[in-house]
């Protein structure tokens, strides 16, 4: 009996270890084998790029891990998993998402990648939190400590109030906040992009809102329960309430209309300016010193995935948009974003 039990224990242990280390495979293995039956043979030719093969011929031999610095199943994780699936489709090696959580604003995940070998096998998914957290003096690293690879996600913020609210339009809301400074409460999670959005609306409308802090997970119940007058969140997170007629959307923070919600005024139509930084974009960073061919190769994968129609459809289903930027464009974009947030953070810190 004892021996039997030990065998069972060993089996459980083996299962456990394999479950932990491999983080599970997915079903696209088959596709990959069909697509590149030849690639398995030329293993071992990665790091010897000295013979100037050019980026076209460059392939990875080790699997690519995309570190999402937040919990599995979250708003950062879900699109990353979908996108990784399509990167995987076009890649010779496996592309998978792992979650390393901890630190403020996902800094633990970023630091793990910063320490990793610069060979393109460990990448971190850069949320918009990174430039914000840096501007607020909470994170001590910037894009300059990494090799920016490219952008892949774009999502739009929306301003919502309750459907039976007295504020029919954005002008009503701003006028009310002007008339009664600091009494109209707008909700967001402190230090996130919606938080900056409310400050920006206040600054451009010359009004002061009361900044209510919402818990990450139950923003909608705060508005449904009438404890805030309105809040700002990604359109994908609030559209079910707009559809159900419980919330009214006063505007979307973008200059192009959101597909399916064409009647909601955009911020450009509402007369706001310089709101380009209020976009929930995500990119990928590689450790500093990753060779250019590797970065280009991964950027190419991102391009293929972003242009994949199925991928676009899956993103659209969640009210996200795929986005693509070349390495240079993305690096410039990061530079601008960090500079803008540095400026905007003064609204918060008051310095």
């Amino acid at each position, binding site marked *: 009996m004892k021996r039997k039990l030990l065998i069972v224990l060993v089996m459980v242990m083996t299962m456990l270890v394999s479950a932990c280390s491999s983080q599970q495979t997915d079903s696209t293995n088959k596709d990959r084998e069909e697509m590149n039956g030849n690639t398995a043979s030329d293993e071992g030719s990665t790091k010897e790029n000295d013979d100037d093969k050019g980026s076209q011929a460059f392939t990875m031999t080790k699997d690519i891990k995309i570190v999402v610095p937040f919990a599995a199943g979250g708003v950062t994780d879900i699109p990353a998993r979908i996108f990784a699936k399509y990167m995987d489709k076009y890649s010779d090696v496996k592309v998978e998402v792992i979650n*390393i959580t901890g630190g403020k604003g996902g800094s633990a995940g970023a630091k793990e990648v910063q320490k990793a070998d610069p060979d393109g096998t460990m990448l971190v998914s850069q949320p918009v939190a990174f430039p914000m957290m840096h501007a607020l003096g909470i994170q001590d690293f910037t894009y300059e400590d990494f090799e920016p690879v490219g952008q892949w996600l774009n999502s739009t913020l929306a301003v919502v109030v309750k459907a039976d609210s007295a504020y029919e339009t954005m002008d009503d809301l701003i006028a009310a906040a002007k008339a009664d400074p600091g009494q109209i409460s707008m909700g967001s999670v402190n230090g996130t992009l919606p938080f900056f959005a409310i400050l920006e609306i206040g600054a451009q409308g010359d009004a002061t809102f009361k900044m209510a802090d919402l818990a990450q*997970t139950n923003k909608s119940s705060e508005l449904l329960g009438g404890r805030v007058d309105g809040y700002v969140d990604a359109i994908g997170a609030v559209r079910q309430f707009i559809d159900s007629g419980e919330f009214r959307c006063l505007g979307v923070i973008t200059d192009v209309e959101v597909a399916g919600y064409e009647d909601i005024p955009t911020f450009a139509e509402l007369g706001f300016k310089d709101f380009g930084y209020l976009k929930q974009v995500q990119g990928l960073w590689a450790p500093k010193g990753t060779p250019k061919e590797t970065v280009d190769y991964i950027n190419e994968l991102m391009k293929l995935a972003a242009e994949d129609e199925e991928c676009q459809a899956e993103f659209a289903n969640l009210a996200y948009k795929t986005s693509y930027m070349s390495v240079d464009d993305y690096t410039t974009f990061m530079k601008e974003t960090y500079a803008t947030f540095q400026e905007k953070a003064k609204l918060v810190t008051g310095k």
Partner: protein
Amino acid sequence: MDVIMSVLTPENLLLILAGVIIGNIFGCIPGLNAPIAVALVLPITFSMATLPAICLIMGLYMGSVSGGLVSAILLKIPGTAASVATTFDGYPMAQSGRATEALSHGALASVFGGIFSSICLLLLAPFLSKMAIGFGPWEYFATATLSLVLVCVMLRGRVLKGFIAVCIGLLLKTVGSSPVDGVATRYTFGNYNLETGFNLIVVIIGVFAIPEIIYSIKNIHEKTKPMPVKKRLFYLPKFSSIKKNVNIMIRGSILGTFIGILPGMGGGAASLISYAQAKRTSKTPEKFGTGCEEGIYCCESANNATTGGALIPMLALGVPGDTVTAIIMGALALQGLTPGPLFSMNNEVLFKSIIFSVFIANILMFLYQIVTIRYMAKITEVKKSYLYPWVTAFCITGVISINNNLFDLLYLIVFGIIGYVLDKNDYPIAPFILSFVLGGIIEENLRRSIINHNTFMGAMQNVGFGTVFVVLAVLLPLFYAINYIRRERKSVHKA
């Protein structure tokens, strides 16, 4: 009918069963828990159709919440916060040679709680989700504070020690960046690993498992007497004891469902409060902690009832009730579904199928447990010199798998020492763990209520059950103290 047929396909049943078994293993092993199990299968569900994916996940969820009772009863090592209270009576009962009995009570209470709450989910989801909306920051703060006070006050004879344990727990919970604004980093000594504070699971393993491992060294060569285990196919508790404990299970289930609805409170709070409540109302409170049936029934029905409770706000509002439901929401999002107010109307069949799969998962979990009890109970017969090295290995693997971060092992040891010192000096562990579970909620929501109402007194004037709870939380210990002093004086007089 469509609903029942769609869930009852062989494929779906197998997936639920697989989920239950894997979940049970995850629940048994300290450190591995429901969120990890669900997160690990998330990529697999990617390529599956919606309903099979849900079946697998629900199986895992029910299996892992309930699996925690096995290690809690047999080893006094709760795998999750939800099974902390199960150790109080389950372990003494197993030690007195009634391990199979303890496990069968636990399994029965689990299935009762799970099914009770899934019926609530089916019938009352829209209504109960309204209740969740009524809970703002002030109400969360008040409920969590009162829960802490209740658990301490009910510790007959050790109330002061209970409050001291709460304070230590709350103090350690403050390590990390401040909630709400994230500006201050407290007690991190420049180490970024400490910025998110201590992980609850690591703390639980540290406080329970490490002292248990240390104690086991003392009698490592001691031979455990083999228990007389009758070779039966399955074990069911005696009908008389079920009948006696139906009331306790119903109360535990209502409490569990209610607490499950409130995001963040979870199974740990539910089972501890239910335990304290059952002890308070019991005719024989002195039996609690010595291995009585009631002690197992009350907490196991409560922690399993939180599963259905947590699904209510997720399905009705898109607000996840706990970490697992947050991941399940993610899994649904990957399937292109957004839970929320329109979900049950637009996807009525799917909505009912989800609830029905929870139902089936609970039943399969129960069957699996009563059949495996015979083998599980054998663990207590394994020689300690074989068993505890494995337990140690499991604990370490479990801790690493939480964050993939080796730093967690360092403070696992620190909490092991804290747990050992507390236990040796007869400080109750339950309030310590509960303050860890609720400390974050208390602090965050206190700050939010102060922002919303400008001052603390402003929040107090917001008369509602929130304020009533806060007043009770202050008055209860006061009454206790006055009563205690009176009694002491009387006894002095007599002397």
